[in-house]
């Protein structure tokens, strides 16, 4: 009945995405001590997902509002969402907003925002269809950034494994050596996977080099508020670049700071020289959106817009965000103090120096394998752990296991 050889006979099986495979393996593990320190989603101290109370509240409001329907959003998204999302990133007093030279594209999560921005740059940056322009991502970076391929992805030095901190000199050297007009993807805060961010002074140095060499800043902001607990503090770098006169993109995600992971709420903020340029850019981004998803999903955007436009709900949200950030900070200090009192070889201050959801522990692949196989503690081969996977109940077990891994395995 079927035709001769299938046209798809030669389609090879693709390897699974590592981070999701880790979670799948964790789920199948029957060991009662198991801990999932893999995928980047917030967990409560009971190890459970947490829907923010303000989100539940707003969801019930939306569900009960008989006047709402499911009509198409505009191609660029829900206007109240777009404007407020960008305002969150750039600040209420942003000169760029006052001068009406910003644009926003509601996107499917941070990934979607990166995708629209990347496709726009491919078409319109540094000439037209100048696909030779290199794109630089940090070494290491979040795996999703590079999974889209693209021949001209290069890396810039970022993580110094020896000192377990930022390799600023390497970073600046790479920026000096990069061809002019290269695109640099910068993590706005809470670098994924290292948790290591430049200090304000270091950001200033980075900005100076980028300005001089005409490098394009493309910010990836997935953790605003979630990193330090303060929205403004976590947006400092983006706002500094804007104040320095840069034109830039900022891909925002509301997956973590709103806990809206599966609703795919993101925003691409565009900062340009003037309104006219921004309008033309948006018109071309519309064309890209139209053939990718036509118009974005409304549920998540409604939740965020409702929250951001109500002073009371906004305050509640900031409070919820601080709750998450504070728990992460607590886990960091608790883990560090346990490792230090265990006398685990090495220094462990990087655990509290780092910020956000992730920590680059410094464990090597063999030690990671030990953790997974012998201790049923799941973490990425890079040694990255999700601090949210730690709870007061499993801290001791994890600390002891790290101690064992470091002392037994080299």
């Amino acid at each position: 009945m079927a035709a001769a050889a299938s046209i798809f006979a030669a389609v090879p099986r693709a390897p699974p995405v590592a981070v999701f495979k880790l979670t799948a393996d964790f789920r199948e593990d029957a060991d009662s001590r198991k801990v999932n320190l893999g995928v980047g989603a917030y967990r409560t101290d009971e190890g459970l997902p947490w829907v923010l109370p303000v989100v539940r509240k707003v969801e019930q409001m939306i569900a009960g509002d008989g006047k709402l329907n499911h009509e198409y959003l505009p191609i660029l998204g829900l206007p109240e969402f777009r404007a407020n999302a960008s305002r969150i990133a750039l600040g209420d007093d942003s000169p760029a907003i006052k001068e009406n030279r910003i644009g926003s594209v509601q996107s499917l999560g941070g990934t979607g925002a990166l995708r629209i921005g990347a496709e726009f740059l491919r078409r319109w940056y540094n000439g037209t269809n100048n696909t030779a322009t290199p794109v630089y991502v940090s070494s290491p970076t979040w795996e999703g950034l590079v999974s889209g391929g693209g021949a001209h992805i290069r890396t810039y030095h970022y993580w110094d494994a020896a000192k377990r901190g930022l390799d600023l000199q390497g970073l600046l050297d790479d920026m000096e050596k990069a061809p002019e007009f290269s695109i640099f993807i910068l993590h706005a805060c809470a670098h994924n996977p290292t948790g290591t961010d430049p200090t304000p002074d270091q950001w200033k140095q980075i900005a100076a080099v980028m300005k001089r060499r005409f490098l394009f800043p493309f910010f990836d902001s997935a953790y605003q508020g979630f990193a330090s607990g303060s929205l403004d503090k976590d947006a400092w770098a983006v706002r500094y670049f804007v104040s320095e006169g840069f034109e830039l993109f900022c891909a925002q995600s509301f997956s973590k700071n709103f806990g809206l992971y599966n609703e795919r709420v993101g925003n691409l903020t565009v900062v340009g020289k003037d309104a006219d340029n921004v309008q033309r850019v948006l018109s071309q981004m519309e064309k890209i959106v139209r053939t990718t998803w036509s118009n974005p999903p409304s549920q998540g955007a409604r939740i965020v817009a409702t929250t951001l436009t109500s002073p009371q709900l906004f305050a509640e949200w900031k409070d919820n965000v601080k709750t998450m950030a504070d728990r992460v900070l607590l886990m960091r200090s608790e883990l560090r103090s346990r490792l230090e009192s265990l006398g685990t070889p090495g220094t462990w201050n990087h655990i509290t120096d780092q910020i956000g959801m992730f920590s680059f522990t410094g464990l090597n692949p063999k030690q990671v394998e030990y953790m997974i196989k012998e201790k049923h503690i799941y973490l990425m081969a890079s040694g990255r752990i999700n601090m949210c996977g730690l709870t007061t109940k499993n801290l001791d077990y994890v600390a002891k296991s790290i101690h064992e891994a470091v002392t037994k395995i080299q």
Partner: protein
Amino acid sequence: MLWEQQVSFMHESLSRSSEEAQCSCFTQTPAWHRSCCSAWAPRNVAAVPGGGTRGLCPFCPYRAAARLLVSLVVRVLLSRADLGSCGAPRRAPSFSLTLRCSFPSSSWWSHVEMGPPDPILGVTEAFKRDTNSKKMNLGVGAYRDDNGKPYVLSCVRKAEAMIASKKMDKEYLPIGGLADFTRASAELALGENSEAFKSGRYVTVQGISGTGSLRIGANFLQRFFKSSRDVYLPKPSWGNHTPIFRDAGLQLQAYRYYDPKTCSLDFTGAMEDISKIPEKSIILLHACAHNPTGVDPRQEQWKELAAVVKKRNLLVYFDMAYQGFASGDINRDAWAVRHFIEQGINIVLSQSYAKNMGLYGERAGAFTVICSDAEEAKRVESQLKILIRPMYSNPPLNGARIASIILNTPELRKEWLVEVKGMADRIIGMRTQLVSNLKKEGSSHNWQHITDQIGMFCFTGLKPEQVERLIKEFSIYMTKDGRISMAGVTSGNVGYLAHAIHQVTK
């Protein structure tokens, strides 16, 4: 101070010329400029509509050299300025002494052209501005009830209430989407008794409504269907098909479909063209309720199309955006899809729940590949995930969850079938009323195609001049090709519409 003033003046004049986004050397000797500037910065020359190029060279090396010279002169003359390295002058200057560090005042985006306005949006914009109380918007591609209002299905409201009460978490979906949804979606399209469905020789991934599902499929074919780069669309087809496939890296061709003389299917032309399509090309077919014409093949014609497509060994891509919405019967609307599969044609399929469940803005859709066997389906699925991940990681939950609850909850599914039939019946009723009203008006034209056609859209056969008059004289808005959305017609305005059409066609 005199030197500083002079330097400042030079700096200003250099900045001003870059503000004009036109390199001063360009106007003098374009060819020379192009060669020097494109060597240094490839983006410097861009085409403008209507021909020609625009120089936009804020980084012209000749001006950079001039700036450098000025800054050197200044450094020599102003010995108290302790400059250090670029970007870190120790004394904040009143103007930038290190001129190479100042930003060009022109933008990165000076050369970006304004995208063309969307023709359909233009219709809606004009409609909104019109103050005529009798105005009608027949461009809208969304269902309206008999009061002209958006319609949220009752089964959708019930599903939403169930969801709200369960207080579920918001964890990421798998890349391929909500499993209950994709399984139910495949079953809806293929039929529960379908051998392909029961054997598991298919993969269905959740997509961002119809567009997103089409795009995933297009990307998949671009990467893995090596036999051809050509996608054959019916003439005409939905306006967004062409850019979707083009952006995915494929090429567009066409086969005859609509016969403007009869406002119906040019079956002979279609068969002729399709029988000449090179083997192993991709052909796109609208499963039901062809957009924009509303013209569907009859079942006998579908059988012949399946035969010729099989003979030519074409890869069939079905776009099914209106299952249930066309005839009111989900099985009838999926007949072509199921027939092709039964004939041994392993199709690929995109589905949308925007219209048939009214879930427009929730973006619920699916993309399916019928495979040789379940093992192949697993390999294809793994590759689909690789394509989806960099686009948006994983799909949005809300719409898929609503659709899944409806499809998988017997009472809600029953209710949905009644409601979707209700929408289809209202449309069919409006078609009938429009034709009978036209007769009442005394029109001598043959308007049978209005009731022969099916689905949301109707190709009236009106010419651009007639459309123009409808807009200007009667405030009835539609696209220039004479396409109307039956969803915009109500029992309250069908008489007015018939009257107007008669006026411009008598």
